[in-house]
């Protein structure tokens, strides 16, 4: 059924492949993930190839993006954060942005609408925070859970809450991106489904169907904003979490 809003998230194998009993087929999901990486890499290679002192149009776009994320990492995680994590955050941002934007094309698959993709990235950030935090600060890393200036009699509860909030980070980090993209695409599909539904009701319905059509166009514009915003937010939260690894007890 083409009107089923869930249909767009089905994963279909394109090139079936099995490695050591595990399913490693090239699916529409992995195809668009690779496309996201390829397009981003190709664009930056092409845009920065001249590396001119007076940049052309493409180079301005590439440099603006670079400066934007560079400034964000510096504001959120300091100069040390830039030195250590800028490539990681920039890669995450660009890939999520490319994947979200590819998903905005009709009939294209959105890799970030799969929880497994976003959860993998969120867990990667979470484990990086733990490993870097312990390696750099040793046991001082646990100061993250003990805020300073809290009265001693409520300290156990605060520590408990801090620990719970620390371990729920990867969950909310992953679900935020996934749910935003999934819900956005579902809502688009549902509203688009209203158009033929109304148009089927005769002459009045055809005029009336302009209303959901306008709404769909407006929602589409909103989805472009969400596609950018969620990539930005994912990168921003990554910076904030990584800052905790570098400077525990500074929040």
């Amino acid at each position, binding site marked *: 059924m083409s009107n*089923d*809003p*869930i249909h767009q998230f089905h994963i279909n194998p394109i090139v079936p492949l099995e490695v050591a009993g595990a399913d490693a087929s090239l699916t529409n999901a992995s195809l668009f993930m690779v496309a996201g990486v390829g397009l981003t890499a190709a664009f930056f290679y092409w845009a920065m190839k001249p590396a001119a002192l007076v940049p052309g149009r493409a180079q301005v776009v590439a440099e603006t993006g670079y400066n934007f994320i560079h400034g*964000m990492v510096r*504001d*959120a995680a300091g100069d040390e954060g830039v030195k250590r994590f800028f490539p990681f955050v920039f890669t995450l941002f660009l890939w999520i942005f490319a994947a979200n934007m590819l998903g905005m094309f009709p009939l294209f698959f959105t890799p970030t609408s799969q929880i497994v993709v976003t959860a993998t990235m969120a867990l990667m950030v979470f484990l990086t925070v733990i490993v870097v935090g312990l390696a750099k600060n040793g046991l001082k890393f646990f100061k993250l859970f003990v805020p300073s200036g809290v009265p001693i009699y409520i300290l156990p509860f605060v520590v408990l809450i801090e620990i719970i909030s620390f371990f729920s980070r990867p969950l*909310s980090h992953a*679900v*935020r991106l996934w*749910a*935003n993209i*999934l*819900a956005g695409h*579902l*809502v688009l599909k549902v509203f688009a489904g209203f158009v033929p539904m109304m148009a089927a009701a005769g002459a009045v319905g055809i005029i009336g169907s302009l209303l959901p059509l306008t709404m769909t166009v407006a929602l589409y514009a909103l989805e472009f904003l969400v596609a950018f*915003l*969620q990539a*930005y*937010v994912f990168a*921003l*939260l990554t910076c*904030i979490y990584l800052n905790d690894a570098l400077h525990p007890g500074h929040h």
Partner: protein
Amino acid sequence: MDAEAAKLIGAGIAAIGMGGAGIGVGIIFGNFLQGALRNPSEAPKQFGNLIFGFAVTEALGIFSLLIALLLLFVF
């Protein structure tokens, strides 16, 4: 009660949660505007905080919308 009816009622109840996110996002943008009009020169520097607060709040509304949509279309 019919299972189909329970599903629809559940989806409706889940969608109530979006109202809370609406209030929260309204407070965030309202307060940002208030602060920005009092001190416009400092406002652009708080853009990151604005978007961060918006995203964290909006995500909760999206979660309840997601539960509603999952109830409607997946179960």
